């Protein structure tokens, strides 16, 4: 017993997903100012940006959240990083509920283990700091370097890791191109030796050839350091390349979540299919496009029932009144009455017909 105890403890630890999100919800108060509300008798208005979102990310895996503007994917990223507080629901990191941590020291130790990379490499780097100081900042704030010498040695090492020259540390952000700046952001994120990186559209502002460089770098770093990623993107092709699991969001909710290969081989939810068919067909195989009507509805006044029903070609009466829950379906999870009840034909059935 005593002999196997440590092994089983380690095993149990490995079984706990590194990051788990349970029923995460975030409301934003977007009401008019108090005086307007009094005079115009306008009610308070609440925008539910993230609505009952749950997922888990295994160690070394990459979960991608995809969706169009305003679907709540970036809000999820910010909630996990602690930039917003959840309205309800919980975020577990390595089995620890972040909301339960009262001790500031423990919180700092936890926070050190995850970092964030932002979309805009122009806005996320302080223009008045040298790159070396930008990269070393997390080391300073977490007290991870003994002295200045160790600090600049580590900064040089980090820059080399992301494919920059150690001498680049003396330069300022404006001297770098967009792709190089994103490398600086990645070096900064890696400086505290995190296990988990939240990447919010890290390549959306970059040109395709530079995007390929950054995606390759992120994959290399993941392999070398055993990193776990939450990858936020609106680009399905990028997501199919980098992720192991994909969650598709629509109006604050996850409508489908599945292993990447499964999702792209057989998209279930009509919204996922719509997104997939909207990707311009570079191979020009002549595959017919499913025409997509309509736009994302106003999140302040989401449709009743399934939020996608006004745009869904398959919607029936039930979809307009009853909101579908995320349910397991053939190796995936999908929130769609039609798929679960079997009255929406699956894509592969269409193909064989």
């Amino acid at each position: 017993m005593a002999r196997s105890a440590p092994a089983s403890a380690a095993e149990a630890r490995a079984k706990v997903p590194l990051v788990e999100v349970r029923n995460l919800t975030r409301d934003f108060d977007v009401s008019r100012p108090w005086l307007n509300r009094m005079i115009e008798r306008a009610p308070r208005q609440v925008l539910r940006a993230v609505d009952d979102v749950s997922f888990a990310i295994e160690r070394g895996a990459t979960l991608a959240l995809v969706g169009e503007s305003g679907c709540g994917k970036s809000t999820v990223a910010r909630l996990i990083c602690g930039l917003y507080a959840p309205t309800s629901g919980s975020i577990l990191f390595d089995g620890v509920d972040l909301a339960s941590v009262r001790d500031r020291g423990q919180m700092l130790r936890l926070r050190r283990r995850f970092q964030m990379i932002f979309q805009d490499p122009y806005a996320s780097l302080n223009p008045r700091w040298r790159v070396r100081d930008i990269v070393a900042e997390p080391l300073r704030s977490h007290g991870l370097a003994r002295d200045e010498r160790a600090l600049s040695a580590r900064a040089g090492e980090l820059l080399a890791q992301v494919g920059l020259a150690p001498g680049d540390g003396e330069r300022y952000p404006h001297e770098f191109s967009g792709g190089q700046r994103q490398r600086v952001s990645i070096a900064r994120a890696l400086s505290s030796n995190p296990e988990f990186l939240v990447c919010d559209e890290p390549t959306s502002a970059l040109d395709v050839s530079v995007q390929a460089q950054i995606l390759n770098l992120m994959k290399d770093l993941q392999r070398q350091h055993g990193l776990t990623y939450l990858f936020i993107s609106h680009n399905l092709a990028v997501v199919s390349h980098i992720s192991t699991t994909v969650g598709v969001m629509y109006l604050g909710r996850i409508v489908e979540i599945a292993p990447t290969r499964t999702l792209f081989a057989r998209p279930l939810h009509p919204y996922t299919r719509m997104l997939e068919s909207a990707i311009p067909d570079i191979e020009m195989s002549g595959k017919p496009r499913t025409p997509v009507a309509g736009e994302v509805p106003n999140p302040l006044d989401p449709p009743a029932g399934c939020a996608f029903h006004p745009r869904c070609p398959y919607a029936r009466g039930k979809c307009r009144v009853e909101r579908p829950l995320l349910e397991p379906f053939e190796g995936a999870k999908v929130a769609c009455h039609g798929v679960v009840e079997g009255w929406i034909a699956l894509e592969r059935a269409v193909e064989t017909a």
Partner: protein
Amino acid sequence: MTVPLLEVRNLRVEFPSRRRTLTAIDGVSFEIAPGEVLGVVGESGAGKSVTGAAIIGLIEPPGRITAGEVLLEGERIDDLPPERMRRIRGRRIGAIFQDPLTSLNPLYTIGEQLVETMRTHLALDAAAARARAIELLGEVGIPAPERRIDHYPHQFSGGMRQRVVIALALCANPRLVIADEPTTALDVSIQAQIITLLKRLCREHGTAVMLVTHDMGVIAETADRVAVMYAGRIVEIGPVQAVIHDPQHPYTAGLMGSIPAVGEELERLPQIEGSMPRLDAIPRGCAFHPRCPRAFDRCRVERPELLAANRTRAACWLHAPESASPRARPGWSEGAVHG
């Protein structure tokens, strides 16, 4: 061959600055046939937007055209006085820009803007122009156009605004539309709608399009021919199928390889090392040679012009008759596919 609708010859645009003069585009030549869609692709700073702006005479001063000429239906338009150019813009050449919000005046209803544009260029009375505006809004897919015509731009969503901008660009029945990144600011599902719409309308009206974008996917879906730009020059131009499936310039091949595709399982994406040079540091010879895996001596000293290469034309010495050899194909390692 019929007379081209638009002909650009050896166009050069320079931006003088205090210290030196930057050349944004240099020696750019191409033609667009009536009703044809020419895609212009390239990465940020390649000069694709400057090319579009030069054609419609909207280069921001102090930038100016310093060489070459632009011919619209055989008539030179790059040296026209501003007043005459203004009459061509909107009437014979329409424009669609990336951000629909900045192309619309927030203080006027979309109806007022459409009617004003039409009445500036066409002999229509107010009632007829309004009727035509409603018809046009319906054509671009705005629901309830007779009611929406009196709304202001802020009352439309991004996708709907871009539809209004398309209606505005087409309202005087131009022969050519210059669309500069028309779908970049939009979500994917809306992007597909706008591309389909633009394509359909231009086919119906017989309008030629110069489509400027960084998105190869959009080009593949829309264009008849494509010009690939790099560091201010066209490096390859040809039928879209040929350029995408059988690129002849190493840069095009690298660019195509670096685009991730859904369902393609690659451990790593083929990447082009380095980045595009800045305008003040364009290398001698072929601007791509420092990043090119197949560069040889000649590339470092002599600048290549467009040369016939298989089904396209590429500015690459690999295609010079004297350097022709059985291996002279610009394959990007295993990235490029034969045939």
